[in-house]
């Protein structure tokens, strides 16, 4: 750097240039022998040999050394070259104790490289693999299609979705570092040597987790068998809980999934009604054709919506790969079959009357699809997504939207072409009754879940209820109003007016029922995601 500065007025330009010319800068680095020093620091913190059969690598956290400085998070971020706001580690806080002896403990956590990784089990494209030797659960970034199902199945919120890339990424225990005898980034970074890699016996992990003593307030370790050990020499008070235990916050919304679930269920319901009614026979055949076409279109829309959910839709076809393990793959296959059969059905219906086997096949494939949808969420093993709760919601949606759609199609059809008024009216009245019963039952069921507000334990269902009557109260109110209007008030109105009002008025009533039901179910499904309190590791202060 030259010191021969010109005098004013050139000084300004000279300084501006000089400070930007980094090539001219003389730089100094500390002379130190990196390898021996570095290796010496970590030698005791990583295993010396590969795991033997029945063993795997695992994180071990010495809670007594974790003071909450969070260097591990930033080191992982820098040394792995993550995105600006991407983090693979998190530091939470446990608190408890008594006023005389307050307890507070920071906890650093990352992927637990589980014995039974739920991310891997759920992945529809087999983008996860568990290394047969080290047990490290690795995500194959180029295989990922960005369906984000693993972000729902992992109880520990480990896989992080990157919208810009359209894939998730996660901790791989710095396997490339371990492979050359270097410690993972977090292990290197902890000033207090509170994180280390150990070799654990799988059997021991399972046995330890059986006792449920993983970490206070953490999700049930029985689900995925996490291998991380949290150790401490201090007494952990019985009331130690994550500092954010009682705070509830809405989860991420999944609009394409909301749309997909509701519309597939509508389509399946509509075909189901066709199968169980005389819709395709006699005087109704014309209406039946239109109805089948409508149901098909909605069903295809639904499948289109599901593709929107993918970060990398161009690789969506891979989603069938995981059919052996993943309910998501099975859902894709079932609805694929349903779409094919429904298309065939609509085509046949256009030409004449579809054979009974075809009607049965469409309906069955659709119901299998809805069953898979149910299992997709049940497999996440969240308390709020218990099998009976999800099944009740999805099946009742199928019935009530099937009924509401068919009702609307019939009544509007009659208003346009009064030819088939007689049999159509009879069927419509039956559907209105079915709708009122199904919708009324579903609303009662959903309201019943709010009784969990009285639970003493702050479980998932209570958290959901707290959200529904708290931060999400406007949405919940709208959902119940729409549901009651479309599912109960409108069909009852229809039944009362069916003999006295003009067809156009009845059509308006049926359309109100249909639209309000659809809106109500879309809101219900939106809340299904955002109010489903997810399990999580301890979080931080506010």
């Amino acid at each position, binding site marked *: 750097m030259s010191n021969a500065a010109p005098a*004013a007025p050139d000084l300004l330009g000279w300084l501006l240039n000089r400070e930007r010319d980094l090539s001219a800068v003389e730089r100094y680095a500390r002379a130190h022998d*990196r390898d021996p020093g570095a290796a010496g620091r970590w030698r005791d913190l990583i295993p010396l040999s590969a795991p033997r059969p029945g063993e795997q690598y695992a994180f071990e956290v010495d809670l007594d050394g974790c*003071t909450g400085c969070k260097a591990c*998070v930033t080191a992982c971020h820098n040394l792995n070259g993550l995105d600006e706001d991407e983090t693979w580690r998190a530091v939470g806080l446990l608190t408890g104790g008594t006023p005389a002896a307050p307890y507070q403990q920071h906890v650093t956590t990352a992927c637990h490289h589980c014995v039974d990784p739920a991310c891997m089990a759920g992945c529809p494209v087999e983008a996860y693999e568990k290394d047969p030797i080290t047990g490290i659960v690795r995500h194959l970034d180029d295989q990922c299609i960005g369906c984000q199902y693993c972000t729902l199945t992992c109880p520990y919120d480990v896989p992080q979705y990157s919208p810009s890339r359209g894939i998730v990424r996660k901790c791989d225990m710095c396997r490339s570092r371990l492979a050359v005898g270097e410690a993972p980034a977090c292990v290197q970074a902890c000033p207090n040597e509170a994180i280390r890699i150990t070799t654990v016996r799988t059997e021991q992990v399972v046995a330890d987790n059986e006792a449920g003593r993983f970490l206070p307030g953490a999700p049930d370790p029985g689900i995925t068998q996490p291998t991380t050990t949290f150790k401490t020499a201090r007494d952990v008070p019985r009331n130690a809980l994550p500092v954010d235990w009682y705070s509830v916050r809405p989860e991420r919304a999944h609009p394409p999934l909301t749309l997909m679930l509701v519309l597939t269920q509508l389509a399946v319901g509509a075909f189901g009604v066709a199968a169980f009614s005389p819709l395709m026979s006699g005087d109704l055949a014309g209406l039946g054709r239109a109805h089948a076409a409508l149901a098909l279109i909605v069903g295809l829309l639904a499948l289109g919506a599901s593709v929107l959910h993918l970060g990398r839709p161009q690789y969506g076809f891979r989603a069938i790969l995981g059919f052996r393990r993943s309910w998501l793959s099975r859902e894709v296959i079932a609805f694929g079959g349903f779409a094919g059969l429904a298309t065939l059905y609509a085509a046949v219906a256009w030409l004449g009357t579809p054979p009974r086997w075809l009607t049965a096949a469409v309906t069955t494939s659709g119901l299998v699809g809805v069953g898979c949808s149910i299992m997709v969420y049940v497999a996440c093993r969240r308390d709020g997504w218990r099998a009976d709760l999800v099944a009740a919601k999805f099946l009742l949606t199928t019935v009530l939207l099937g009924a509401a759609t068919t009702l609307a199609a019939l009544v509007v059809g009659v208003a346009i072409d009064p030819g088939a008024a007689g049999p159509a009216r009879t069927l419509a009245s039956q559907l209105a009754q079915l709708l009122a019963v199904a919708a009324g039952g579903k609303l009662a069921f959903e309201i019943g879940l709010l009784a969990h507000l009285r639970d003493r334990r702050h479980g998932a269902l209570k958290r959901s209820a707290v959200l529904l009557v708290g931060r999400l109260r406007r949405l919940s109110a709208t959902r119940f109003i729409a549901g009651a209007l479309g599912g109960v008030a409108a069909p009852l109105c229809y039944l009362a007016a069916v003999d006295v009002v003009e067809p156009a008025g009845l059509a308006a009533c049926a359309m109100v029922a249909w639209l309000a039901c659809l809106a109500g179910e879309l809101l219900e499904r939106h809340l299904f995601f955002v109010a489903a309190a997810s399990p999580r590791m301890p979080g931080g202060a506010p």
Partner: protein
Amino acid sequence: MKLSLARLLRADDGPLTQELALASTDLGVLPERLRPDGIATVVCGFCSTGCGLDVHLKAGRAINLTPAPGHPVNDGAACPKGWDALAPLTAPDRAVRPLARNARGKLVPVDWNQALTRMVDKLKAIGRAHGPESVAFLSTGQIVTEEMALLGALAKLGMGMVHGDGNTRQCMATSVVAYKESFGYDAPPYTYQDFEESDAIVLWGSNLAIAHPIQWQRVLRNRRQPTIVAIDPRATETAQASTWHLALKPKSDLALAYGVAHVLIARGWIDRAFVDAHVEGFDDYAAHVAAFTPERVADDTGLTAADVVRLAETIHRGPRVSHWWTMGVNQSHQGVRTAQAIIALALLTGQIGKPGTGANSITGQCNAMGSRLFSNTTNLFGGRDFADAGHRAEVAGILGLDEGLIPRQSSWSYDRILEGVHRGTIRALWVIGTNPAHSWINQPGLDEILQRLDFLVVQDMYASTETAQRADLVLPAAGWGEKQGTFINSERRVGLTQLVAPPPGQALSDFSIFRLVAERWGVGDRFARWSSPAAAFELIKQLSAGRPCDITGIRDYAMLAEHGGIQWPLPAGTVPERHRRLFADGRFFTPDGRARLKVADPAPLPESPSRRYPFLLNTGRGSAAQWHTQTRTGKSAVLRKLAPSEVWVELHPDDARRIGIRHGERVKVSSRRGSLLARAVVTPRVRLGEVFVPMHDSTTNRLTVAAFDPYSRQPAYKASAVAIERPETWEM
């Protein structure tokens, strides 16, 4: 065909995988795309710990950063701020052009020539109209020593200013005064190695684990199984991790230290030989503490008499005892005497100058120590005295300037400068690298003061700080990493920081800005010797010659880099060691070489809780990921993630129950000055009747009461009376 179909179905590798693929490099295993082609070791620019960071360079520019292994301070570790120190440099709200307030009151971009003309014309006009006292500066502990020194020289010996102070007043002034009076010089005596070599580590008002995580690392590396005593009203992270936590009443630490001294003297647990040989004022001290019986101290502190005796026993048992203090002591209405009472405990027991001992003040900012010695504000360069003609002559000689240019009085302190603004004596302020509109005590009062200014110049990395938003003129400054120079850390280590990224837009280093102002002021020739940071460093070396902080033995920047920083003193001809402490010979910097004992009676709190404001408010660091007013840490996505997302107030469960506040609720905290909204965190970490609010939110200082230590003029941020209530709906 078959192959490509297989790849379509199964892609074990590809561009996304390669993005994270790791490869072995000279700096360890790193992502291939971040493979460095060079490194520069720099000192971190956040806190005073002074960690060494290896900045990874590609084509001369910083691309990544790792803590420097083997560095004498941090040996390969860093806190999150250090790890993510590069992120704040690329923030979108960096000041990239000078901004001037136009006729309609809006800050608009101007070019450097216009900005400099405006600044110089305006300041000269104000000076002509109202005298040399009417223009002052407020600087920072965040710029390099070379810049501080040039500013101090330019402002006082070039522009004719009389008053200027730094934000170090807010964190370190108390220690400065305490050390000067007790040791004869502002000389923290320790090395961080003392953390590793103590048997008893007594932490007075220091949340080391969160505020200085890497110093806490040194504590945890201690293999002697030390007793760690945390003296703190709040059960901080440090207190929880200590062997013993003494949750005393706020600001009763002075009484506690006197009580401990009482027991030490009464039981004959003092090092009489050391005291006789090296300490002045023992008899007065003993007489003073005679009244501080354990029973009385128990009353004053809320502890038990047994606690007081046990602490004295711990200090007596040793064998190596070190005392450390930070803001809990410094930010107090009686901070200086408290610090001196702690110093007295070390002196009485002879626990100084030996491994694992000392009365050790842990500094705040990365270059507070540089500011203390070379900012030319309250002290003349090198810890000299403005009033001393001999000192003025020395400095004038070294700088090649007329002695008459040097003012004969020292600067007003920060609070007095603001008072001067309030009275109308000071009409223009030049604020450099600090954010008083956020950080100064009693914010509503400061708001009013800033309104009285005729002209406010703010020189900062960001045009978005609360203070810059109020400026008449904003000068865009380069930040840490965009310039070269030295910092001095808590253990007196002079370390090098380097240029690893270009400043954005038209931003310039503070050093260059000062040179431009000198030119424009018409005094450029007076500062011709300050041609570069390296040249300024040579002048600083000369200014240190023969002073306790003598660094004439430091050859140049390269030598600093080679050693990972060098502790002062290093007189010419001596060889640097990795760790050094002062006073091994028991000789202090007073004229007679003896340390002084100073006493005062504990004073009541400036503002006690009342019926209307029943709680006592403590403020302090929120998390290890936050730095001060967050102008920098708030710019990093990762650090934001690691910090609490909103301001909170800690409240004791019994208090919460009594006033009907639930955990997690939004509450209104108000004082006689102002109010804020915060999330209630109900926790037994705080004592009954006390609340805690982190200092990082811009609203926190609406609450604090403008009280000061009478000797150091340091603000007492940690004891204000407040009320807590549920806000009205319209206040939410």
